[in-house]
């Protein structure tokens, strides 16, 4: 069943091929904006790199949260999901996975290319990419809760960011922390285990919390 949801969401994304590309472009543009705003000194850019990439990934992921449930809500599909004999948590998990596939994966693949622009050393590039690989699914999973809670509320698009950003911050801190630790020549294993722990916890709790939020929002 979960496959149906993933298949459908990917189908919808593909129907507008621009959809996948656009999140990616957003990410690329935001990352490229900073050198414009800050100035071109390479030393400063190198320090900023991981932070900027991570913040851009976070914003790209957050930006697309609005779409996660709202169109299903507007056209009545969500009602049908709530009435489906299939477990709502499974459906929600499917939606979070396809959200990650559409928004997270392209970012992870693109990150090394952008890192090069900021003159990052190879090891830092690898660590950055891996940290995004571990971190972006957490963003989608946590984001699902926020998206479900703000469903149907006007200004939800921005309200969701208030709810979700504070929860994203720990991911951001450990994600960039890993890169900085590796640049400083220290071990980044601890950061990765914490990111991994975040991922496990959110896999376990987020579908459940999201399903509960959806039932509340639709009640």
């Amino acid at each position, binding site marked *: *069943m979960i496959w*149906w949801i993933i298949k*459908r969401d990917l*189908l*919808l994304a593909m*129907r*507008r091929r621009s959809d996948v590309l656009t999140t990616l472009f957003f990410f690329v543009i935001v990352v490229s904006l900073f050198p414009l705003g800050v100035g071109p000194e390479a030393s400063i850019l190198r320090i900023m790199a991981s932070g900027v990439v991570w913040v851009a990934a976070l914003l790209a992921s957050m930006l697309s949260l609005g779409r996660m449930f709202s*169109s299903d809500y*507007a*056209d*009545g*599909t969500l*009602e*049908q*999901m*709530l*009435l*489906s*004999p*299939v*477990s709502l948590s499974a*459906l929600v998990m499917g939606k979070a996975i396809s959200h990650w596939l559409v928004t997270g994966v392209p970012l992870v693949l693109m990150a090394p290319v952008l890192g090069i622009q900021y003159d990052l050393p190879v090891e830092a590039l690898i660590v950055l990419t891996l940290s995004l690989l571990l971190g972006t699914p957490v963003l989608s999973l946590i984001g699902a809760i926020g998206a479900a809670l703000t469903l149907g509320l006007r200004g939800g698009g921005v309200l969701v960011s208030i709810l979700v950003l504070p929860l994203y911050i720990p991911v951001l801190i450990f994600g960039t922390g890993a890169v900085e630790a590796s640049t400083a020549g220290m071990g980044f294993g601890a950061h990765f285990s914490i990111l991994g722990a975040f991922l496990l916890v959110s896999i376990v709790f987020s579908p459940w919390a999201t399903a509960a939020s959806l039932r509340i929002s*639709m*009640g």
Partner: protein
Amino acid sequence: MTTGPSPIEMLTARNLECIRGEHRLFSNLSFSVNPGELMFVGGPNGSGKTSLLRLLCGLSLPDDGEIYWNGTDIRKLGVDYRDVMTYLGHLGGIKDDLTAIENLRISCALAGCEIDEDQAADALGQIGLAGREMLPARVLSQGQRRRVALARLLVTRTKLWILDEPLTALDVAAVELIKGILEHNLAKGGMVIMTTHQELVMSTVTVHHLVLS
């Protein structure tokens, strides 16, 4: 209050009350629907028909009273109830970007009954959409979209259908078609609860009229 599964399947509502804002839409509403029976829910605009249907399918909770399926509270049944029930609301759950076939297959899968491409095309043909199966729903006319949503009734195997104004936007031929589909389900021992502002004469089956005011 639960009395164990009764031998015949039936939906029973006891002393339902529904309050919206300052208005008490209805209270002390009790009825039951047996296999092969159709219940029309009538009443003027805003009398609470949609609200009642949403209670019956478990989308919202009554302010008072209980709803039983085979003698068990539907809240306790959860998935078991959703397994035997189909709800079609004002909104069709039709995605603009998907074709009619994709829409039908996905909405069926969501309802727990997976069908393949041919079955879907077949159902769409029966409901008068032959030749439009591969069009994205965005370009379909209002009545055609409605038909895509209703096509689910042709493939679902659920007993209890709860339909909120299913005839909206349909032309005369389609109304007859839907009538046939409903009669078929009732003849098989199914149950239908529906609202409509249009007249729909069904002589061969037991029809209840519940009028809210």
